C-alpha cells in the first residue's frame, strides 16, 4: 500500500512538475517588480494569463503575468452601464479625464481587461483595469507584478538617421495593434514623421537585447504588390486546421497570410480577399465559428459592424488589380444593423462577443451579446 502510494504520488508530482514547467516556460525572463510602463495602448493576451501591453511612449511591449489563470465559464450575460465612469472613479477622476485605449478578454477566466490613460496630456498615466464577469472592476497593480519588457528597435532605415547631433524631436512610432501568435508577439506600427508602417514579430518569451534577439520585420505584400499602408488590426485564425493571419489595412484591402510564410526577414505574401473600399476604417476584428461556418466580425468606424463569411477564404480568388465601381469586392459581407456605436469589440467565449458601446455621445456601456 505504501509502495503504491509512493508511486502514485510520484506520478502526481511528475504531472505537477510538467504543468508548472509549461507555465514556467512562458514566464522565462520575467522579474517581479514595477513595470516600467509610460503609456498603455493596444493590449492582447498570450498563454497562461499573460497580458501584452503596447507602450508607444517607451517604444516597448510589456508582458505581464496577471496570475489570472483559473478557467471559468460564463453563466450569465455581462452588462455594466457607464463603464467609463466606473473605471474613472477607480483612479479618482471623472470620465472626461480618462481615455480607454483598448480591451482584451482573458480566454481562461473570461475577465475583461482594459488599457487606459489617466489624463490626456503628455503626463498621462497608464492604467490597466480588469472587469469580472460579475461586473466588478478593479485595477491591476503594476508596482509589484511579474513582467518582462521588449524594446522595439528602430526599423533599419532609421538606424543612421540622427547620429551625432541630438535631435530635438526623436523619431516616434505609434503602435496600432498587437497580437500573440504561437511563439511571438506581432506588432504593427506607424511612424509619426516619415510615412512608414511596420509589422514586426518579437519572439516570446522575450530575450534580452544583445543576446541574439531577432526582431523580424515583415513587409506586407498582396499578390504582386507591396503596400506601405499601415496595418490597423490583425487577427490569427485557422483555415482547415492551418494557421493564418488576417490583416486589415487602412485604405487597401483585407489580406490573409498563411503563418508558414512568416519567416524571419521574409516578405509575408498574402492574398487579398476583400476590397472594402476607401471608407474602410477598421477598429477591431474577431474570428469565430458558428454552425460549422467561420466568420469574421469587423468593427469599422465608418461602416458599423461587418460580418464576413470566411469559410471560403482558402478558395477565394485573390484580388490583384484596382477595384472599380463597386464598394467592395471579393467576399460578401453583411452589416449588423443592431450593433451601433461600437467602440471596442472582442470575443468573450465561443458564442459571445463583448462590446463597449457608446449611445449617442453618452457614456460607454460594456455588454456581452451572442455572436451574430
Amino acid at each position: 500500500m505504501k509502495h503504491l502510494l509512493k508511486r502514485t504520488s510520484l506520478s502526481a508530482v511528475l504531472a505537477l512538475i510538467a504543468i508548472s514547467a509549461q507555465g514556467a516556460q512562458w514566464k522565462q525572463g520575467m522579474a517581479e517588480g514595477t513595470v516600467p510602463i509610460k503609456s498603455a495602448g493596444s493590449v492582447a493576451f498570450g498563454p497562461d494569463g499573460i497580458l501584452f501591453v503596447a507602450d508607444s511612449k517607451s517604444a516597448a511591449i510589456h508582458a505581464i503575468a496577471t496570475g489570472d489563470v483559473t478557467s471559468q465559464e460564463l453563466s450569465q450575460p455581462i452588462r455594466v452601464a457607464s463603464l467609463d465612469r466606473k473605471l474613472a472613479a477607480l483612479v479618482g477622476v471623472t470620465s472626461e479625464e480618462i481615455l480607454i485605449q483598448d480591451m482584451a478578454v482573458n480566454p481562461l477566466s473570461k475577465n475583461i481587461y482594459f488599457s487606459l490613460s489617466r489624463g490626456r496630456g503628455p503626463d498621462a498615466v497608464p492604467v490597466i483595469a480588469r472587469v469580472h464577469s460579475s461586473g466588478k472592476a478593479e485595477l491591476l497593480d503594476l508596482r509589484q507584478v511579474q513582467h518582462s519588457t521588449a524594446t522595439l528597435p528602430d526599423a533599419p532605415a532609421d538606424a543612421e538617421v540622427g547620429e551625432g547631433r541630438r535631435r530635438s524631436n526623436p523619431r516616434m512610432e505609434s503602435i496600432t495593434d498587437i497580437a500573440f501568435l504561437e511563439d511571438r508577439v506581432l506588432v504593427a506600427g506607424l511612424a509619426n514623421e516619415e510615412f512608414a508602417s511596420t509589422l514586426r514579430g518579437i519572439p516570446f518569451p522575450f530575450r534580452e537585447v544583445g543576446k541574439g534577439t531577432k526582431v523580424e520585420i515583415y513587409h506586407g505584400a498582396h499578390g504582386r504588390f507591396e503596400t506601405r499602408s499601415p496595418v490597423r488590426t490583425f487577427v490569427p485564425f485557422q483555415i482547415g486546421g492551418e494557421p493564418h493571419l488576417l490583416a486589415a489595412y487602412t485604405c487597401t484591402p483585407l489580406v490573409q497570410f498563411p503563418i508558414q510564410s512568416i519567416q524571419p526577414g521574409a516578405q509575408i505574401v498574402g492574398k487579398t480577399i476583400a476590397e472594402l473600399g476607401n471608407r474602410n476604417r477598421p477598429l477591431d476584428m474577431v474570428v469565430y465559428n458558428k454552425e460549422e461556418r467561420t466568420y469574421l466580425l469587423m468593427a469599422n468606424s465608418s461602416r458599423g459592424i461587418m460580418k464576413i463569411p470566411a469559410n471560403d477564404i482558402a478558395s477565394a480568388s485573390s484580388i490583384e488589380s484596382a477595384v472599380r465601381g463597386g464598394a467592395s469586392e471579393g467576399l460578401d459581407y453583411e452589416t449588423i444593423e443592431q450593433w451601433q456605436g461600437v467602440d471596442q469589440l472582442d470575443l468573450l467565449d465561443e458564442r459571445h462577443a463583448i462590446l463597449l458601446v457608446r449611445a449617442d455621445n453618452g457614456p460607454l456601456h460594456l455588454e456581452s451579446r451572442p455572436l451574430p
Partner: protein
Amino acid sequence: MDTTFLTSLAGLAAGLVMTLQVQGASRLEWIFQDSSPIPSELRLHPETDEHEANATLGNLENALQVYVVEEGVDPLSNPPVDGSYLQSGKVVIFRPTYPFADRIDYLAVAFDGVQALHRSSKQQNSPVACVDHIQPEGEILPENLLKFYIHFSHSMGGGDVYRHIQLIELAKKKVVQWPFLELGEELWNQDMTRLTLFIDPGRIKRGVKPLEEIGPSLEEGKDYELIISNQWKDAKGTSMAHSFRKSFRVGPPDRSPIALKRWTVASPRAETRQPLVIHFGESLDAALVQRCVSCLRGNQELEGEISINSQTTRWTFIPSKPWSLVEHTIKVHTLLEDLAGNNVGKPFEVDTFAPVQRRLESSHETLHFTPVLDKTP
C-alpha cells in the same frame, strides 16, 4: 440618542472642507500638504479606543471609502477610489493609488455612516494655448499632399483630436468627409506640442488608379481651409484661446522624386563660419529635413547650427568651427520626403506594383562641396 450636528467650515487655500460631526461617531479628516488645495490623504478617527476600533474596523477597506462626486450621478453607484490603507494607532489612513485630482469633489464615507465632502476649487484656468503654426506653410499645396504638422504653443490634450479638425472646400462651403488618417493612437511628439496629420492615403489621387466611393481629399484648382477649433483642450483641460484657420489653394500633384542634382549649394568661404546654404528647389517635409540632412568632413559629422526657412525650401548650416579648405560631404538620407511623400530617388506610392523585394537596407545619397578661398586681397 442625542445627536449634535456640527457643520464646520475650514478654508484652506482654495479648498473647502465640510464635515458632519455626530457625537459618539468617528471623525473624518482630509489631509493637505504644503498648502496644496488638493488633499493627499484621508484619515478616519474612530471615537472608540484602539482595541474596540480594531474589532469594529476589521477589514480596513470596509472602514473607509472615498468616492468621486459628479453632478447628476450618485457617487455610491461607482466603485470607490482605489488606494491603500494603513493603521496608525487607532487612526485609519487612506492614500489613493493615483493622487487626488484638481477640480474634482470627493466624498469620504466611514463605516458608521459619517461623511466628509471635499469640495474643490472649480476655477477654470484662462485659455492660453493656441495653434502656433501649421506646416507646410505655403499657400499653394500639391494635390497629393501627404501630411500636415500642427504646432501648438502649449502641451495639448489628446484622445479626440479629429473632432476638432475640419477641412472645408471653400467654393461649395463643403466639409470634406474623413480626409485624414484617423488613428486611436494619435501621432504626437513627446511633449504633445506637435500633431502629425496624415491625409488618408486612400483618398489621395493616384493618377492612373481611380478612387472608389468617395473622391479625393484635395483637388487641383480648388481652395480649402483647414480649421482647428478652439474647443480642443490643452493638457490642463482648458480650451484654446482661439481657433486657427489655414487657407490654401491646391496646385498640381507632385509625382517626382527628390533629386539632389536639382539642389543648389552655395559654398561658404574657407576659414570663416559663413553659413552653408542649400536650396532644394521645392518645399520638403519640415520634420524630416531636420533629421535627414547633415554635413560631414571625411567621416565626421560637423557640429553646428541648422536653420530652415518657413517654406522649407532652404537649409542653412553655421558650423561651430571655421570651414577648412577640404572637400566636405552633404549626406542626405533617402527617407527624406517632399510634401507629397516622394523620397530621394523614389516617388511616393502606397501600393507599389513591382516585384516584391527585401528592403531592409538603409541608404543615403551625397553631394560634395569645397569651401572657397577668398581671393580678394
